[in-house]
């Protein structure tokens, strides 16, 4: 199953150069665990979304700034820059402020959830209770709402 291999690094760069040729909705997944990223990506791609994975906050921010995607999935525990910091940046910049951000984290503290929603997150999903199919359904629901 070659699709299960972690996304190659160059893919993040390629995202900056061309839009999805098939015109599929673009999802930016900011997630540091490659196995988890790959799993969600697999299902999202099966359901006709274009997915790009960024393994840390700054990479994700750079990608979002150059070509704002239709939706951002954001992990909170990230190396270097935390997810909440990334969220704050995204919401403070004109180019990305309108892009819906869904937090996808294994933190489930009520205080953490409240903080993320307050910072402008559209939704908060706990990974361990969100199967890839759940996620794809949620993403579809959010995008069709607009």
């Amino acid at each position: 199953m070659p699709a299960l291999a972690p996304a190659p690094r160059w893919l993040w760069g390629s995202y900056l150069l061309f839009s999805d040729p098939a015109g599929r909705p673009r999802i930016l997944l900011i997630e540091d665990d490659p196995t988890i990223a790959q799993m969600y990506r697999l299902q999202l791609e099966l359901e006709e979304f274009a997915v790009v994975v960024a393994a840390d906050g700054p990479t994700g921010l750079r990608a979002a700034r150059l070509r704002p995607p239709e939706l951002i999935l954001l992990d909170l525990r990230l190396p270097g820059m935390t997810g909440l910091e990334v969220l704050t940046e995204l919401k403070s910049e004109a180019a990305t402020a309108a892009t819906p951000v869904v937090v996808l984290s294994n933190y489930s503290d009520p205080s953490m959830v409240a903080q993320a929603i307050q910072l402008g997150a559209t939704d908060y999903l706990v990974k361990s209770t969100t199967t890839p199919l759940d996620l794809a359904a949620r993403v579809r629901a959010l995008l069709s709402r607009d």
Partner: protein
Amino acid sequence: MSDVLHVLQAAVAASFVLLGVVALGEWLRERRSSSGWIALSIGMLGVVAGAGLVGTEIGAPNSPVISAIAVTAFVLSAYGLLRFRGTFIPLGPVVHRTALAALTAVLILELVLVWLPDALPHLVAAVAAALLVVAWSLSVADPVVRLALASRGLPSVQAARLRSLAAGFGGLIVIVLLAGIAPDLERRPYVAIAVELVALAMAPLLYASFAPPTWLRRIWRAREEERLQLAVRELILFSPTRRELAHRAAEWAMRLVGGDAALIADADGTPLAHEGLPPDRARELLEGTADGDDARIARTGGAAAQTAIVVPLDLSSGRGTLLVLAGPYTPYFGADELQRLNNYAIAIIAGLDRANLTERLAALERTKSEFLNLASHELRGPITLIRGYLSMLAAGSFGQIPDELTTVLPVLEAKADEMNSLIEQMIEAARLEEGRLELHPADTDLRELAQRVIDTIGPLATQTHQLILESTADEVRAYVDPERVSTILSNLLSNALKYSPQGGEVRLTLTADNEFAVIAVTDHGVGIAKEDLKTLFTRFGRISTRETQHIAGTGLGLYLSRELAKLHGGDLTVSSRPGLGSTFRVTLKRTVGGSSPAARAQPA
């Protein structure tokens, strides 16, 4: 009038002689240089007073022998006081030599005048007398001022002792100066009586300075005692850490005995606190004072040997040490100081042991929080992947799966779900203990909720089980946290299935009155023995019997379920008959927290 004066003079002389004797006695008892010098000084004052008295009694007040003795004693009293001051405010060698030379010179001059009153002109005699007064006054005034200054910041008893010594000698200086400057004045009877009265008043002051009676010491100490008790209380009850506590304790130990530096060492010999001395010296001191079982006064080793009080601290972790060093401003340490420090050490021991316990508890709390973090992340990560891929497999994301796999997949999924709910329960229990668990109540139909739980639990049932929902009404509305109530119900249902391995009916009954909703889960499984019911709801209180030991579980479920029910203003109870089955009964208040939309709910 002269009779009164005579009696007074006799009283003054007698009291100073007595003082001298007592001072000598004190010195004989303690044999320290400081008490020796003060005994010399006061004893010589007694000799001066006694000489005057004897001279008057034998009718020869101007006898040269008596005069010589009086003058010599007078000069010696100043020198004694100066040396006393030197025992704890070191006397510079230049000052010492100058004072000694001046006093000796004046003494020799006076002795010459006593033996040969006509050998020198009258003017020289007057000058010599004036010099004597000046030399004496200066030699006494220096210690008086220095002792008064040094008394500041000392423990109250020492401060009071030094102050009364300073006041006593200060009064004597006034008398001597008055006699020296205006000898005529003293011939007037009233002035003479006043002078004698002042002299008489100085005697008890001086007495209090070197041998204060216990009652006086208690009065002096009273205010400080109050502060000490407060400090001890604070020490034992409130000091946050051992280091902080040791730091404060050392400071008070120093104050208590007027020491110059103090240190407290832990059972392993590391200094916990060192006040007024560098860490290197602290370590050196600890090595220098070999272990002993009792509190004692010791001399420290090294070039600059000092007196120290060493008190062993019998901590629960071993023997520590409290050590207080005498400083240049501290009068010698005595039995009183030793006793006080020994009593104080008991408080230090209690405090340090308590802080030890508090620190360990705090560390345990931290470990628990860290565990929560670990559970939420390190365990949730893998289970996310396992459940995710299983659901994708089942949904056909990887294409058609072989038939053999379709029978295995639901079991894998159910087991992964079970593991996930175990993890969630661990996190919930940890949150509950931290008091961080909050309910998110919403208007809920309990019947619908129960049905949903039964649907998700279904795959865990074997073919011999029948899951039955029974409700007295079509709809039972309550204002509860739906997720937490689901947790309770799925716990009870999965337990009922687990502990009835032979199968049978598992019945969920839902009833309600105006105030409470009651959900009962009944099985026909192995049941619970009476003696095991007590531990059933405690954390990790899983019961292991021959029938149940093969069944997996953490024992957290019932504990958590009951706590959640309690948060809903209700409870979780059980009735069971071994071998016949159990009934778990959850009561939930239909309106959590008083006001709620459930007020409009239909009573069932």
